[in-house]
C-alpha cells in the first residue's frame, strides 16, 4: 500500500497540482485584447520575433536534411506553450509548421483564434486550445517534434514539473526552445524597475523577480529530465531602437535550445504503469 500511496503523490496528471499560477493568469487576462498592437504593451514581444524566429528556424534547418522551398518548417509539429495571442505561433505557421498553441487564459486563445481566422492558409496550420500543459499531456504523449516555451517559465508555479511535462509530449530527439529572464541584480534593476516601473516597456506587475530563472538552474533541471542542453545565448533589448540582439552575457534575457534524449537512451522516470504492475505482482504473491 505504501508504494501505491507513493505513486499517487508522484502522479503529474492531477489538475489540482498544476504548473499554472492563477495570479499570473489574471494579469494576462486584463491585456488579452492588446496582443496585436505592434506599438502597444506587447511591442517588445513583437520585435523579439526578429531574433527568436530565426533562432528556432535556423536550429531546426541545421538539424534536418529536407528543405521545402518557401516553407522551411514544413512537416514539423510544434507546441507553443503559453502562446498568448499567437505572436510566435503565427510566424512559425507561416514558415510551414503545424502549430498547436496552448494558453490557460481563455481570452488569449479567443484573441489568437480571431486573429488567425482572416488568413485561411494560416488558420489551417495553427490550432489553439485553452489549456495548461499538464492537461494535454495524457493525449499528446510524444506527439510533438518541437516545443517552444518563450517568455513562459518565469511565470510557472512548478518549473520542474513543467519541464517533465515538456519531455513527455516531446518525441525522442525532439527540440525544446525556451526564452526567459535571469535572476540577477541587473535583471531586477533593468527588468523590473526600469522596464516596468520607469519606461513601461513591459506592463507593470508582469514579472516577479522571485520567479526569474538563472540559466544554471534551468540547465540543471533540463539535464536531470533527460534533455541535453545544446545552446544558451544571451539576449539584449535596446529600448531606443525597440529591437533585440544576441549578446554574450546571459545576465538579463537568454534563450536555450535543448534536445530530448533519443529513443535508445533510458528516461530517468520509470513510467507509472510499470510501477503498478510490479507492485501488483508483488502484492499478488505477498
Amino acid at each position, binding site marked *: 500500500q505504501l508504494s501505491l500511496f507513493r505513486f499517487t503523490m508522484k502522479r503529474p496528471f492531477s489538475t489540482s497540482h498544476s504548473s499554472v499560477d492563477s495570479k499570473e493568469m489574471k494579469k494576462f487576462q486584463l491585456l488579452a485584447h492588446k496582443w496585436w498592437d505592434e506599438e502597444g504593451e506587447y511591442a517588445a514581444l513583437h520585435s523579439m*520575433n526578429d531574433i527568436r524566429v530565426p533562432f528556432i528556424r535556423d536550429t531546426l534547418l541545421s538539424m534536418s536534411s529536407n528543405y521545402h522551398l518557401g516553407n522551411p518548417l514544413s512537416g514539423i509539429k510544434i507546441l507553443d506553450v503559453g502562446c498568448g495571442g499567437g505572436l510566435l505561433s503565427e510566424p512559425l505557421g507561416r514558415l510551414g509548421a503545424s502549430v498547436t498553441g496552448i494558453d490557460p487564459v481563455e481570452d488569449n486563445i479567443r484573441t489568437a483564434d*480571431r486573429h488567425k481566422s482572416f488568413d*485561411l492558409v494560416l488558420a489551417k496550420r495553427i490550432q489553439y486550445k485553452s489549456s495548461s500543459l499538464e492537461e494535454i499531456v495524457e493525449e499528446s504523449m510524444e506527439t510533438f517534434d518541437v516545443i517552444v516555451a518563450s517568455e513562459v517559465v518565469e511565470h510557472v508555479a512548478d518549473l520542474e514539473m513543467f519541464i517533465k511535462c515538456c519531455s513527455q509530449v516531446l518525441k525522442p530527439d525532439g527540440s525544446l526552445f525556451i526564452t526567459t529572464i535571469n535572476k540577477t541584480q541587473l535583471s531586477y534593476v533593468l527588468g523590473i524597475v526600469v522596464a516596468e516601473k520607469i519606461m513601461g516597456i513591459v506592463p507593470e506587475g508582469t514579472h516577479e523577480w522571485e520567479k526569474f530563472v538563472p540559466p544554471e538552474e534551468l540547465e540543471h533541471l533540463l539535464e536531470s529530465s533527460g534533455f541535453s542542453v545544446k545552446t544558451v545565448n544571451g539576449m539584449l533589448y535596446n529600448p531606443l531602437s525597440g529591437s533585440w540582439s544576441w549578446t554574450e552575457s546571459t545576465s538579463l534575457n537568454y534563450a536555450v535550445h535543448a534536445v530530448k534524449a533519443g529513443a535508445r537512451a533510458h528516461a530517468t522516470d520509470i513510467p507509472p504503469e510499470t510501477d503498478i504492475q510490479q507492485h501488483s505482482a508483488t502484492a499478488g504473491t505477498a
Partner: protein
Amino acid sequence: PRAPLRSAASAPPLYDVVVSGGGMVGSAMAAVLGHDIHFHDKKIALLEAGPRKDYDHLPDSYSNRVSSISPGSATLLSSCGAWDHVCSLRLKPFRRMQVWDACSEAMIVFEKDDLDDMGYIVENDVIMSALTKQLDAVADRVEVFYRSKAVGYTWPLPSHSCDTSPWVQVELADGRRLQTKLLIGADGHNSVVRKEAEIQNIEHQYDQSAVVATLHLSEATDNNVAWQRFLPTGPIALLPLSDTASSLVWSTSHDHASELLAMDEESFVDSINSAFWSNINHSDFIDTAGAMFRSAISLLKPSGTAVRQLPPSVAKVDPESRATFPLGMGHATEYVQHRVALIGDAAHRVHPLAGQGVNLGFGDIACLAHHLSAAAFNGSDLGSLKHLLKFETERQRHNVSLIAATDVLKRLYSTTLAPLVLLRTWGLQATNALPPVKVRI
C-alpha cells in the same frame, strides 16, 4: 473608408502581395518576387489597366521610347532571368558619356576606368517583352490581371480591432474584389494608390516637354558614346541604338517642342545637327574665361582635360517616330504606410537629363524585394511597417539627393546669364578633373 466585417469564407481572394501597375517597374517587381525563393508558396497579383500586348514580334524599326539602363539595373533584371531575354533581343551598350555646355567649351566625359560598359540603351518594349516572359515562367505564383484597372482601395486600421478585416481591399473597375496583405503602388506619377493613401506629393511641372525620335546617322560608326549637350532651352541627348541609329531625347520649351513636331523631316534633322554643333551661344568673354580655367587645371592636374570626341551627325529621322510628352518633377513625402509601399514614378518623378528615371525604380525594387524576402523567411506579416520603413529610409536617402541634384542641374543649365554660365563652366571642368566626384556620378 474602413473594411466591413465579413467572414473569411465568403471574403474576396486573399493575396500576399498585389502590385498595382503593369509598366516596367510594376512588372519587374512582380517578376522579382515571383522568382524569390522565399516567395515560392506565396500568391502575388499584378494589376494592369491595359490589355496584354504581344511582345513576341519586335518590329525591325526601333521604338522611340528607350531607357538608359545602369549596370545595377541590369543585375536586378538578371536576378529574375529577364536580362538574358533582353540581350537576345536587342540593346546597345555604351562605354562613355560626353556632356557639354552650349554656352562654352566646358565638357565632362564619363568613362569607367576598366572600359566596362557604363550602361545600356534599351527600348522599353524590349524590357517589357523580357519581363512578360519571366512572369509567364512563374504563372503558378504570379497572377497577372490585364484590363483590370483598380478603382478603389480600402485601408485597414493599423492595430485592427478583432472585428474588421486586417487586409487591404482592392476594387477593380469590373466590380471584382481582391484582398492583400501588402499593396505595392507602381502606377506612375499620377499614382492612384498614392492619392487614395493620402500621401502628400511634392510636385512641380517643368515648363518643358521632351521630344523623342529615332534617328539615322550620316555614317556608320562605333556608336558607343551617349551625348548630351545643355542648350539654354534644355538638354538635348543622343543615345546610341546601333551603329547606324540613335534615339533622341530633347527637353525644350513647350512651344519649341510643338514646332519640332510640326516641321518637315529635313528641317527637324537640321535643328538637331545645329543644336549639337553650333557655337551661336558662345560669347568671347565666356570662351576666354573658360580657356584660362582649363590652362590652370592642366597645370595642376595634367590629365584633367579629356579628349573631345565629336558627336555623330544625323542624316534622317524615322517617320512616325516623333513624339512629345510634358516633363515634371515629383517626390512623395512618404514611400510607405501600413500595408502599402510606393515604387518607381509613383514615389518619385525626375527630369530625363540624368537618364535615371527607370533606374531609380529598379533600385526601389531591389531594396524592397530584399526586405520582403527577409520578412518572408522570418514568417513576418508582409505588410508590417517594421520592414517597410527600412525600405523607405534606405531609398529616400538615396533618391532625394539624386532628385534634388537633377533639379538643380536642370535649373542651373536653363540660362545664358554669364555669371551662372561661368559657374557651371568652371564647375563642369572642375568636376571633369576630379576623379572622386565623377566616380560617384
